[in-house]
């Protein structure tokens, strides 16, 4: 019988290319999630008028969904930076199977967390833009214009991070099945 690559103990050459692509995609995801976390965390808009009882300042702290988004994005970007090490290991040793499965599982958990944070923030941003008049929740974006624009922009980076994480999971799956 023709000896397969597995029996010879050598990985198929495409696995190394997949590992290099994995490394570069991870770098892109780090940039996206880190940028969105920083952009959301540095929001601070104060309106130029004030009264004695009401405070006219908007920060990300004021809405718990945005706090969750900043925390989730930071955790995922820290995980992605740490997983660069495993990615380099896969470039060097291209026939490692167990670490690839572990990386796939951790990537799935990270993508889930990032998507949860982004979706919660998106729901609040949509509410802030449009409001729901039926339950007396009015839109705040007409007053806090800069705040709204910055928050909406930071969501783009985190959705890009989610898409890149999905690609990373699919790449790991393809690399696992090529033997």
């Amino acid at each position, binding site marked *: 019988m023709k000896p397969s690559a*597995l029996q010879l103990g050598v990985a198929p050459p495409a696995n190394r290319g997949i590992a290099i692509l994995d490394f570069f995609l991870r770098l892109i995801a780090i940039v996206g999630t880190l940028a969105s976390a920083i952009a959301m965390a540095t929001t601070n808009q104060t309106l130029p008028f004030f009264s004695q009882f009401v*405070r006219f300042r*908007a920060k990300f702290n*004021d*809405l*718990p*969904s945005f706090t*969750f988004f900043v925390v989730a994005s930071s955790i995922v970007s820290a995980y992605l930076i740490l997983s660069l090490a495993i990615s380099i290991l896969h470039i060097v040793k291209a026939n490692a*199977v167990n670490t690839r*499965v572990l990386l*796939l*599982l951790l990537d*799935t*958990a990270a*993508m*889930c967390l990032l*998507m*949860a*944070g*982004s*979706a*919660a*923030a*998106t*729901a*609040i941003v*949509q*509410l*802030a833009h*449009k409001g*729901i008049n*039926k*339950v*007396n*929740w*009015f839109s*705040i974006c007409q007053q806090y214009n800069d705040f709204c624009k910055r928050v909406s922009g930071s969501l783009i980076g985190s959705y890009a991070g*989610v898409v890149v994480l*999905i690609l990373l*999971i*699919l790449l*790991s*799956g*393809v690399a*696992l*099945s090529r*033997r």
Partner: protein
Amino acid sequence: MDSSHSTKESGDIPIPVTNPKSSKAAPPPVVAATTKKTAKHPLVSRWKRGLGIIDFILRICAIAAALAAATAMGTTSQQLPFFTQFFQFKADYNDLPAFTFFVIANAMAGAYLVLSLPFSIVCIVRPHILGARLMLLVFDTIAVPLVTAAASAAASIVYLAHNGNSDANWVAICRQFNDFCQRVSGAVVASFITALVFIVLVAVSAVALRRK
């Protein structure tokens, strides 16, 4: 062991044959062929089949959870027994776009799960086919963020409905619409369970993809 027994198939148990060639015509090759195939991969097929059965059972649980979430959210409608001239005291899931997205996303996830049951059965019956397993992995990976997004967007609106937000002047509406809030919160919990089951399905597919 026996000089009269021909050892053409290697997985055979040597059976002492006293009669000449007429007695070992048809039966031994058939037995030898099947024992050779399972003798080479007995443990691999068995655990892959086990993983396939776990996958199938989890898929059925996820169908129940996703459809329960979609119907619980989609059939909410509470009307308060008083009204004024300008304000309408009726709460529907249609009023909140996050809830509309929730119903659509969970219904899509339930439909996908029902359609993926045949592929799961194929993976149980023929565990060495990698194409079906890889396809399940791809589509499950797309379904995880969809269901997670729907669940967490609805959860953030439900949190706001329970607690309100004084900085944005958003009043908590759950004190008035109590039934609506309870039902909607239950639907969100069911959807989070669906997302968790999807993650376990991705893990099962990843482990089962390894060729040994």
